């Protein structure tokens, strides 16, 4: 049985805006689920309904089989981690972290041990005697995270908890959250707009846009087999390359604007208008290709580079070796590795193949 179930969950604001549109989602015991989407997609509203901080206008929230839709947050045994923490200014860091345990009347010795353990893991041991006002914003955020993670609730809800950290701190915190998850197996719903963070953390990524769930699948599936054009574009950095055109020759070739001849593809069953998608690692320079453009950007990314090639068809990024420089303005041909080609319906945005 799923541990946390959202059933036709809906939120309409008083002005008529449908922030969340009848979503269904089942979270398994121990699963780490990330709600991913741009600002305004409904991910935070969904999280707040799970927490009991917003009342759904329709649908139900089931926790361990119980309908908790009308229960208060306190009645749900939920650990909530926010982007911005309100720490108690008069308490020390140690007292702040211990607070949820003190409320739960956990014995002193056990409390101290739990605080010491989480503080060490998050890297705030040296700060335990300080007051919140003596800390930087990033350190305050770590203290907030430690306070949330010191207790083991039935479910953790996390709303961009790493939002204000530097990238190196963020990396360390992601690693920490992942380890924490492997050890404790507390089901977690985590909200972010950052697809890299979602890919790193999730057992399952739930991509949302305009109040609806577009795809809910493991990171590798969302990445390799996006269900819609939106998911293809939103996941990946840069996102999937998308070129509008048509399948010709009985589906065996692809044609787009500005091509002297069509580009052969592995045979497809249909012809007609399509959007061809390919991740940058499946695009290579090929002097003989009829798909031609000019190098507009050649961006170094550390382990690799991305050459952005602009043509009549739009822009396509190719992932290349860190030392394979491309000269701006050069005309190049582009070819797609057949294994990486995905086709979408331009009318609906859905996947064809």
């Amino acid at each position, binding site marked *: 049985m799923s541990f946390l179930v959202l059933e036709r969950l809906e939120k309409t604001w008083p002005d008529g805006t449908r922030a969340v549109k009848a979503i269904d989602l089942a979270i398994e015991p121990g699963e780490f689920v990330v709600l991913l989407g*741009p*600002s305004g997609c409904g991910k935070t509203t969904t999280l707040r309904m799970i927490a009991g901080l917003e009342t759904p206008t329709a649908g139900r929230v089931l926790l361990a089989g119980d309908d908790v839709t009308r229960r208060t947050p306190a009645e749900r045994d939920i650990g909530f981690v926010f982007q911005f923490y309100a720490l108690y200014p008069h308490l020390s860091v140690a007292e702040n972290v211990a607070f949820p345990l003190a409320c739960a009347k956990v014995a002193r010795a056990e409390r101290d041990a739990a605080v010491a353990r989480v503080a060490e893991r998050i890297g705030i041991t040296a700060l335990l005697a300080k007051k919140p006002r003596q800390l*930087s*914003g*990033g350190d305050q955020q770590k203290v907030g995270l430690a306070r949330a993670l010191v207790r083991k609730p039935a479910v953790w809800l996390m709303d961009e908890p790493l939002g204000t950290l*530097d*990238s*190196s701190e963020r*990396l360390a915190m*992601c*690693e920490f959250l*992942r*380890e924490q998850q*492997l050890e404790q197996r507390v089901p977690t719903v985590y909200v972010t*707009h*950052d*697809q*890299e*963070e979602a*890919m*790193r*953390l999730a057992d399952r990524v739930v991509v949302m846009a305009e109040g609806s769930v577009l795809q809910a699948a493991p*990171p*590798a599936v969302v*990445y390799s087999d996006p269900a819609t054009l939106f998911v293809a574009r*939103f*996941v*990946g*950095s*840069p*996102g999937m390359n998308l070129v509008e055109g048509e399948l010709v020759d009985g589906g065996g070739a692809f044609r787009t604007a500005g091509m002297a001849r069509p580009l052969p593809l592995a045979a497809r069953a249909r012809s007609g208008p399509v959007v061809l998608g390919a*991740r*940058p*690692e499946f695009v290579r320079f090929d002097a003989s290709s009829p798909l031609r453009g000019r190098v*507009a*950007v050649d*961006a*170094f*990314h*550390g*382990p*690799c580079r*991305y050459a*952005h090639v602009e043509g009549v068809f739009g822009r396509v990024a190719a*992932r290349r070796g*860190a030392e394979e420089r491309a*000269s*701006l303005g050069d005309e190049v041909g582009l070819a797609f590795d057949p294994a990486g080609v995905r086709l979408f319906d331009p009318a609906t945005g859905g996947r064809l193949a």
Partner: protein
Amino acid sequence: MSAPENREAFVRPPALELRGVTKRFGAGASAGRGARALDGVDLVLGEREFLVVLGPTGAGKTTLLRTIAGLETPDAGSVALHGRDARALAPADRDVALVFQNFSLYPSATVRENLAFPLAAPARRLSRAEIDERVAWAAKLLHVERLLDRPAKKLSGGEMQRVAIGRAIVRRPKLFLMDEPLTNLDAKLREELRVELRELARELETPVVWVTHDQAEALTMADRVALLVDGRIVQTGTPEDVYARPNSPLAARELGTPPMNLFDVERKDERWITADGVELARADAGAPERATIGVRPEHVLLDGGPSDAVVHVVEDWGPSRVLFAHVGAHALHVLAPRDCALRAGDRFRPTFDVRRVVVWPRA
């Protein structure tokens, strides 16, 4: 072309030149004792160069920009703009444009009014037609033409930041100073604007000092990166150079995600061994006896090494996977191909691509 050392920079004075700039804050600052926000900073910016100053929170990035803009006065050292000593120039006369991470717009004014505002000062003596023309030009470059009649408060975060940058470019300043302008935006929008703003700067042919804690901005946008740590510039160079050849372990830690793996080692014959006895990789016979060695996660090979490592977390990074592992008691990050089958709990025998290992002698 990214040509940091273009010939012009030598013929004409650089767009910006800082020599030994030091700035102290706090108790005793005026007596030369306060905490140093900037400590002897030297920087040269060529015409049309895009310089990214990368550093963690508190490194002194904002103080650096404010000092260039004339909003702070250095306690020591000099700032020259296009060959002129900046002390002689009031902030308003420096002809620099600052863009902040918090979108500074007039909320009830329209986008058009916001863009026109910096041009409306009587001292600029621009005609109505000239102002309209510049506003239209900036709106087109930043793709906000369809928003011109919308009040600023109705814009999304990304739109606001475009307009804020538009407000900076309408004046056609001689230098842009950008203070983490993408920090408050969604990740996807940041990625798009990185590409777009880099191209914009190239079109405008105006030099830029862009400060950030975001490595992706430093790697992908910069002609040259300057690493700022605790008020000091620890290394400058092209992104490729600073990434491949950090000049110190400190510089190595600043750039790269996941970060470069660093180990304090001793050389036993032709092997690198940690103080607690873990053999890591082959060493050149001529290498120093005691060293810190660095290897990027993408240069760790998964097999054929001398010691066992254990994977404890695997993350999916799209085209690749990142393994968080331990070799002995030492953390090891590995950037592995997407089809890597290792899972948490698995063992492997890592080795390093020895041509890529960076060695710093240690006392």
